[in-house]
């Protein structure tokens, strides 16, 4: 679209033609960072920091300014208490619980992750613990068929904790390598639904110590500042261990994750770049930052 191209082009020409760092350059940078959903506070912080360095004469080359900003953003994205890779338990099934607000792409992401595990030769059990949304089970079953894996489910309206508990039972008995639990989308502000999520987690831990080993929060790249609130409240409720950022195949940049990684020290594990089974990538901070600055697009 017009907006996107002009931004990308502007970013390219922004640094190339310039000999010095001036107020215009900072204004344009501000627009680029805010338009990428980085948020006004993080943007101001980044730029104020750079302005101070320019004043101290520690920074004078526009190209260098860009490198400094990228480095800083990179450090936000990499600020993590968790290892970047998924950590499997030493024995028994590796249980992943997938959570997030409505419609972000949880079920689809599960379908894609399943394929990755299958390709790595692992056996996967899918668990339909979204017993609420219309045809949620049918949707997961289709992803199960596409991956040729079993989907554990009960009737609509069943207690999701019971579904999860029984699934762990089965996974332990049948020695599955990986169990992925799909949960219903819920807004982070809905206290009773967040309680339900805690219960699903607790119940699995009762059946298998340490489970779930990974709690993956799915975020939609088109989301703005509200993603911070989502991440905080889901983290408070169940403790998030990793993020997946979906819908990066559009024009949204998903810049808000930089604030989330930084504030909550949670790593981004995957990005979603489409609706198909292969449209999943491991997160690469450099690609992400380049795209954010309009320097390059993601590898599709």
């Amino acid at each position, binding site marked *: 679209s017009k907006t*996107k191209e002009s931004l990308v082009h502007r970013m390219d020409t922004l640094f190339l033609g310039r000999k010095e760092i001036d107020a215009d350059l900072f204004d344009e940078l501000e627009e680029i960072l805010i338009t990428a959903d980085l948020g006004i506070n993080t943007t101001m912080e980044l730029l104020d920091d750079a302005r101070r360095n320019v004043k101290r004469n520690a920074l004078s080359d526009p190209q260098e300014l860009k490198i400094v900003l990228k480095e800083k953003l990179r450090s936000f994205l990499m600020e993590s208490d968790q290892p970047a890779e998924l950590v499997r338990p030493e024995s028994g099934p590796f249980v992943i619980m997938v959570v997030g607000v409505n*419609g972000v792409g949880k079920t689809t992401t599960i379908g894609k992750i399943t394929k990755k595990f299958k390709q790595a030769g692992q056996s996967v059990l899918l668990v339909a613990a979204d017993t609420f949304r*219309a*045809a949620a089970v049918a949707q997961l079953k*289709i992803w199960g068929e596409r991956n040729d894996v079993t989907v554990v489910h009960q009737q609509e309206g069943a207690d999701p904790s019971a579904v999860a508990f029984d699934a762990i039972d089965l996974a332990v008995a049948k020695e599955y390598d990986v169990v992925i639990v799909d949960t219903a989308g819920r807004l982070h502000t809905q206290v009773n639904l967040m309680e339900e999520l805690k219960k699903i987690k607790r119940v699995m831990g009762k059946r298998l110590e340490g489970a779930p080993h990974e709690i993956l929060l799915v975020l939609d790249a*088109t989301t*703005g500042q509200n993603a911070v609130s989502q991440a905080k409240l889901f983290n408070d409720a169940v403790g998030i261990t990793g993020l997946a950022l979906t819908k990066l195949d559009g024009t*949204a940049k998903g810049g808000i994750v930089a604030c989330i990684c930084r504030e909550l020290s949670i790593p981004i594990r995957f990005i979603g770049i489409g609706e198909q089974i292969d449209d999943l990538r491991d997160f690469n901070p450099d690609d992400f930052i380049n795209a954010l600055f309009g320097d390059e697009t993601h590898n599709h």
Partner: protein
Amino acid sequence: MFDNLTDRLEGVFKKLRGTGKLTEENIKESMQEVRMALLEADVNFQVVKDFIAKVSEKAVGLEVTKTLSPGQQVIKIVHDELVELLGGTTEQIRLDGRQPVTIMMTGLQGSGKTTTSGKLAKILKEKGRKPYLVPADIYRPAAIDQLQVLGERLDIPVHPSTTDMKPVEICRQAMTVAGQKGYDTLIFDTAGRLHVDEALMGELKEIQSAIQLSEILFVADSMTGQDAVTVAEKFNQDLEISGVVLTKMEGDARGGAALSIKSVTGKPIKFVGIGEALDALEVFHPDRIASRILGMGDVLTLIEKA
């Protein structure tokens, strides 16, 4: 009692007490605060810029009244301008024109099209219409099932679409069935798609030229960030949408996307989704969203009374 923006504006105007007019300088300072508030609420960067320019113009030279503090007065101007921009025509779905009434739901993936189709059908049924739900999403796994389940819950007929048919064929066929069975209101639920996906955008245009549509609703997630303008602009360019539905508004999103979308499309926001349940659809209240975008609740009611 006063929250963030009000406090910040009061701070700006502290020095002003006693003097009679809002000067260019303290307007400028206060507009910085308003700008921050709007950006924090996810209003698009460019939209904020235009908005601030407009409001500044209105505020300069304004007499300071006795009933309101300067800060409150600026907020009132900002709020009134927001309401005006968000509001405009508050017409709902047009039911009196050509029959049958045909409504196409469009938007990005996961925005809430299918759920809103169900909610809308319920409202229309309660108004005495005979709605027919038409699943025209052949891509998303179990999309047809999803609408069928909603139809069953609402006791509203759903067209028996299959994934081997082209969406435009499904819509045509549904029109014929509706004619035979006397359904007077068709709701076409289309697949979520990206605005940059030209092939899939073309599919919507194809439906548009095959069926005389009464309404094309653009369904958008209220949590959307800066990109809302790009998406809404493209859907409106390609399809000339007739209205907007904002979903998931019961959460804590500030909802700046409402202003962004309204600004670039000029199309009325007709409904607001406030939950997953099938009765969680409301008409749009510009004043409520304006307060929310500014991050303030009941303060404004006080100001309005003053």
